[in-house]
């Protein structure tokens, strides 16, 4: 007799989604996480007295709508803000605005406006097709199995329905890079780099890296699944975690927070439970890990507990990141040149040209700090004043490209980088420095430490074709089961991968229930 049907390692959004579905089906589930609050990357934290911020993910744009409904997240307190438009800030203050399928500003001409509508239409048709794959377990191509055949048939039908032109485009671009695709479609530099930013966010890739079209489509697929647009969560992203935890608990999930898992334990050659930091052992019919694959296999299970080929695949699994977060506590609403006050609540991005982005990537490769960055800015306190003291504001920005650890070390590197980032921001918001009451810079190594994500990669592994679909995280450990009997994956390291999406957790639960292992 085991303590639980399933133990889930980590209380991130995917873990809680998985737990919700499993307990809804009547299974007993324990969710364990070392962090004090549920949600993982969906977290809100006070970074300065009175100032709270979504300290990892800041935008919700890809969360699958079926999960919101199945787990009744609205009934459990989830409140989303208004859909945001994207405003790409330009040095000459002629800012570029992307809203739905329309674009304006920054000297965008009618040809680019028409091309943008065509491009969005094409991307939507690809996203629709990919959503078939994303809502199912990834089909294996070799082993013939009816579930996989059905998925492949649906995919084949979807490909057929794309029409010859789009099908040809998809086959042509999916393996290449966003840089080339942007140059094919558009002439406006600001437009190109603004779209390209969506292809590299959270990754270790530049616009010219192969696989950036795939990562762009991944994001677009999420948007298709969510149908919310880009929004903020009222109360900060942690409120998503809270609503997921509340939903899971109502179905009967047991949550044990503030307790770290030190090991996945095996009996003979089967995973049979976990060991906590306290030494306490908990047994379960299966263990489901929402931790990233490297943490799961290398740190919790141990390379000596698996066949050598599996260890080799884990070592080869790529999960580096060039993503940092900048948090500013502001005494007042900042003034961005050329932006009206009501525009400040939108998604503000700053990018150099695509070539500039590529140049910004280079120093990171050599463990150096760049003098050029991209910013994806949210001032959440406009829509959600409760995050800061009255009249005060919080600015949160996703910043690229920042090395995991520069050669000069972070003690010296952080103040230097912070100064650099502030000077880049001040080009667009000249007096913002005067408003800063407190600041915080979260670099990839911080994200690794605080959220347990190897390399600080919030997709739990690079989003690339060789680590996607039926190869995510790696061959032999796909379809949520792993090469180690009794161990399953439900995190972003499993199909369909990263972002606040919830599908790895949902698909894992469905697959586990279907297999009848509980």
């Amino acid at each position, binding site marked *: 007799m085991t303590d639980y049907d399933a133990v889930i390692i980590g209380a991130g959004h995917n873990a809680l989604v998985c737990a919700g579905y499993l307990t809804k089906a009547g299974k007993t589930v324990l969710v364990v996480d070392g962090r004090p609050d549920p949600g993982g990357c969906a977290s809100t934290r006070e970074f300065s007295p009175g100032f709270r911020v979504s300290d990892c993910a800041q935008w919700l744009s890809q969360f699958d709508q079926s999960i919101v409904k199945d787990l009744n997240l609205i009934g459990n307190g989830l409140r989303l803000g208004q859909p945001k438009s994207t405003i790409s800030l330009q040095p000459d203050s002629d800012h570029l605005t992307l809203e739905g399928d329309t674009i304006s500003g920054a000297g965008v001409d009618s040809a680019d406006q028409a091309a943008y509508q065509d491009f969005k239409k094409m991307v939507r048709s690809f996203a629709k097709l990919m959503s078939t794959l994303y809502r199912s377990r990834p089909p294996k191509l070799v082993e013939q199995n009816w579930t996989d055949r059905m998925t492949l048939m649906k995919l084949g039908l979807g490909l057929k329905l794309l029409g010859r032109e789009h099908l040809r485009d998809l086959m042509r671009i999916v393996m290449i890079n966003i840089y080339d695709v942007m140059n094919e479609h558009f002439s406006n530099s600001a437009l190109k780099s603004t779209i390209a930013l969506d292809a590299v966010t959270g990754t270790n890739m530049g616009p010219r890296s192969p696989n950036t079209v795939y990562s762009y489509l991944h994001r677009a697929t999420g948007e298709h699944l969510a149908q919310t647009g880009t929004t903020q969560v009222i109360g900060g992203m942690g409120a998503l975690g809270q609503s997921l935890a509340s939903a899971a608990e109502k179905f009967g999930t047991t949550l044990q927070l503030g307790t770290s898992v030190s090991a996945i334990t095996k009996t003979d*050659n089967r995973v049979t439970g976990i060991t906590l930091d306290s030494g306490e052992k908990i047994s379960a019919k299966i263990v489901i890990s929402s931790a990233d694959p490297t943490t799961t296999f290398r740190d919790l299970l141990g390379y*000596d507990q698996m*066949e*050598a*080929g599996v*260890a*080799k695949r884990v*070592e080869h699994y790529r999960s580096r990141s060039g993503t940092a977060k900048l948090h500013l506590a502001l005494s007042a609403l900042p003034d961005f040149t050329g932006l009206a006050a009501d525009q400040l609540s939108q998604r503000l991005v700053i990018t150099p040209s695509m070539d500039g982005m590529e140049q910004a990537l280079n120093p990171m490769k050599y463990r150096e700090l760049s003098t050029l960055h991209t910013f994806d800015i949210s001032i959440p306190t406009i829509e959600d004043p409760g995050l800061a003291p009255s009249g005060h504001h919080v600015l949160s920005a996703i910043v690229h490209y920042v090395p995991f650890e520069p050669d000069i070390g972070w003690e010296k590197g952080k103040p230097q980088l912070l100064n650099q980032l502030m000077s880049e921001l001040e080009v667009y918001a000249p007096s913002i420095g005067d408003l800063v009451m407190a600041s915080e810079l979260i670099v990839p190594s911080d994200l690794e430490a605080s959220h347990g994500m190897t390399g600080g990669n919030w997709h739990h592994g690079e989003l690339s074709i060789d680590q996607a679909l039926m190869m995510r995280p790696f061959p032999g450990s796909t379809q949520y089961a792993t090469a180690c009997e009794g161990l399953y994956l439900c995190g972003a390291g499993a199909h369909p991968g990263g972002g606040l999406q919830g599908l790895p957790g949902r698909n894992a639960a469905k697959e586990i229930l279907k297999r009848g292992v509980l």
Partner: protein
Amino acid sequence: MSDVSRDTMLLTTPFHSRVEAMCNINDWGNWMGFTTPNAYFDVELEYFAIRSTTGVFDLSPMNKYRVTGTDAQRYLDRLITRDVSKIGVNRVGYAIWCDDNGQVMDDGTIFHLGEQDYRICSYQRADDWLAWNTLGFDVTIENESDTVAGLAVQGPTSCTVLTLLGCTDLNQLKPFGIAHYTFEGLPMMVSRTGFTGDLGYEVWVPPESAEALWDQLFELGRDYLIKPIGSHALELARIEAGFLQANVDFMPAEEVVRVGRTRSPFELGLGWLVDFNKPLFNGRSALLREQEKGSRYRFAMLDVQGNKPAEHSFILKGKKQVGTVTSAAWCPTAKANIAYAQIEMPHGAVGDELVAEIYYQRELHWTRLLAPCKVIDAPIFKSPKRWQTPAPPH
């Protein structure tokens, strides 16, 4: 290989000066990058030295890896398919290792030299695979291929010759045992192992002892009709004795590029080396699945009628082709025409009667022969001397 001439692409072994001097017919081959004799004077006479007196074979090109560290035994237990704990100190175990798909990468011998101290002797270079296997283990792998020279000294008079060399009480050494001596002030290790199926030993010394060892062996062994043997004579002996050869009877899994060309231990008749009582070893899950689902092939030892070796033959069941031959020889001592074959399941069980489709030519005239053959359960040649302790006097 600092002391080795780089004049040619092929490397030479520490015994090369002596080997070269004795290689009367100058017939050389390439064995894993080393230049080694196919034959010294006459393949059949060399073969009969193994069976009747003593044959000496330079096996220095074999790859040797030292495995030490607190996890050495655990490391090996995860690497190979058999239970390492059953190989005592100063004992040698024959072993195979598989990839995660349960496909054989190589076979070799594991020398248990001391507490958490082992040596793997393998046919293939294995540096990369052994290094990957260290992940998660406190273990050090050292490639000793160039610092350990080896001679196989095989045949009925081998014990006597080695005793004359100073290997005291060697006759008391059990099969697969290891004994330690010194030779000219340097360590010399002798294991009762070999590839001939006869009484025989393998002698392991530092390269600087190599030439003196060769000289003294041949000096002391003259009255015991000691002869050097090349790879062709050894090939005859090993087929007669029932030993498999990597790259001949199976393809090392890592070298295979075509789908389906690898083989599992069960498909090579090596299931006896797989110990499922061990909770974890490379290939275990895949091999368990294979056990459930059944293997694709069966290793069959065939007693072929007639005296034409069934080299590269197709094996037929009625008119249907069910397999191919990997090794074949007319074996002089067993006086049997032996072939090893890979037979598609379900054919090839012991007693199964098959046909070997043999092609041979004499003076450019090709003849096709349909030779009946029968699957036998063990080699016909079985030398009791191989297993006797004390080693029998000649």
